[in-house]
């Protein structure tokens, strides 16, 4: 891993790392990534990947009845918002006017 990689991944993850953080994370992430290379010792030819443990590969999860349910009300939902108004979440302007 290089410093450029760290900055690129931070950008993908929407993290604005300081220069000091980049310098600190680089050797740490590099050491972890070197360690996980260990997995290459394992032959995984024709081994199915496992994404969940609840259901056997051939089984599909049971679906609930398609019925409307009441969720959280608007007020309860907005109470934790950093900024809201008119019953909506407020975000910085994303569309510029001419």
């Amino acid at each position, binding site marked *: 891993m290089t410093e450029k990689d760290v900055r690129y991944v931070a950008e993908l993850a*929407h*993290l604005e790392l300081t220069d000091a953080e980049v310098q600190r994370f680089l050797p740490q*992430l590099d050491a*972890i990534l070197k360690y996980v290379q260990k997995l290459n010792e*394992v032959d995984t030819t024709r*081994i199915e*990947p*496992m994404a969940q443990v609840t259901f056997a590969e051939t089984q599909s999860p049971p679906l609930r009845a398609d019925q409307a349910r009441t969720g959280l009300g608007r007020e309860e939902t907005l109470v*934790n918002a950093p900024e809201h108004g008119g019953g909506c979440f407020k975000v910085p302007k994303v569309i510029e006017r001419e």
Partner: protein
Amino acid sequence: MTELTTLGIHALQDLLARRQTSAEEILRAHLDWVERRDSEVHSFLAVSAERALQQARAADRRLAAGGALRPLEGVPVAVKDVILIRGLANTCASKMLENYIAPYSATAVERLEEAGGMILGKTNCDEFAMGSSTENSAFFPTRNPRDLTRVPGGSSGGSAAAVAANTAMVALGSDTGGSIRQPAAFCGVVGLMGTYGRVSRYGLVAFASSLDHIGPFARSVRDVARVLSVIAGRDPLDSTSADIPVPDYEAGLEESVKGLKIGVPEEYFKGLNAEIAGPIENGIKLLCALGCEVVPIRLPHTEYAIACYYLICTAEASSNLARYDGVRYGLRAPEYADLRDMYKKTRNRGFGAEVKRRIMLGTYALSSGYYDAYYLKAQQVRTLITRDFIEAFDEVDALVTPTSPIPPFKLGERLDDPLQMYLADIYTVTASLAGIPGISVPCGRTRGNPPLPVGMQILAGHFDEARLLQLAYAFEKAGGFEIAGSPNLPHTGT
């Protein structure tokens, strides 16, 4: 009268039934002890005295009116601060959620309250449950009540320490890669992670969804069994919760363990620290003395578990934590240029170093060009690790291992080396990957000064919690917690 804070559920409810105490008296004894003892241990992020008092008074009114004791009537419970309780702050020990008030309760919490439990407060943990020492809390570290210079383990360190320090009778924690079992071992208490799907995750703040569990801590196996019976079972609000009947775990505890076949996986003992190996070997001898047949067994993919786990959990975390963007809840950076800048500044300000590190690692593992080499590969190895266990449980009824390869370490000792911190999870991440249940029980202690708790882990096949608990109970009854030859643990006070 016996000190109320040192009792187990059974003894406590005996007193309640005979009207020798009241729920309010029990609660006040605990709140007083929290005030004194927790100023050293720092288990609690917030104490919900008012709410608990209402619950205590409601319980006392119920009992006065001739109501029967519910399973957790009058039991003071502490809850890890990643499990939502309606109306209480839920910080996940993060600056990101410092001002977040839970709009609903986790199903496990609702069930505890319906069973008569009184919620004492929310406990400290590693930020977003990421860590093995509770030092990653954005607020303060929790200390191990057995030795205040050492960590309580993590991530559910606050819950484990509260139970060990008698500030709570039982507690809820969450376990993604060992976050209940390892702090239970470090603090000398019992901690259980059920089968994936045994306990609803509804209301547990998501870290790695295919690995997250809620589970109980207590000072005895019987109390853990009681709490598990209350919180387990199908929940329509968590589609991964299993529709499998919940046995009365407590009623099944007395079943004989004679003739059970116990596997000892050799991979878990290679190069093991002698401080841990001694007590665990004595523990295994005790199981033999109880009539169990102990056989060596192999779990050949064990050495790949840490690499596999840290790729999968970070990948899932990078996706789950994308929601903290300063829009719907949590922190928003005060100054920014535009929307994208607001996301970035908010996330950089709100998350601590370990959370950022894991998001970075997970984002990298999922990024274009690396997905197959890291994430997909890890998922394939997860299949192999799971197969190891399934094959093992064709031959044996349960497995016995150390819970942690090391005793509780000093605060600050491992903070600058994340990889070393990850490697300490080696014996707990395997069960998480396979989705099988595990329990950590006290098993003697180290010879140091002061002596430190050692934990023994018992693992069983999917949905075989009853077996785990029977073994753990037989072990406890035979004196396993205080294995012969171990020095005495320092008192944690009353």
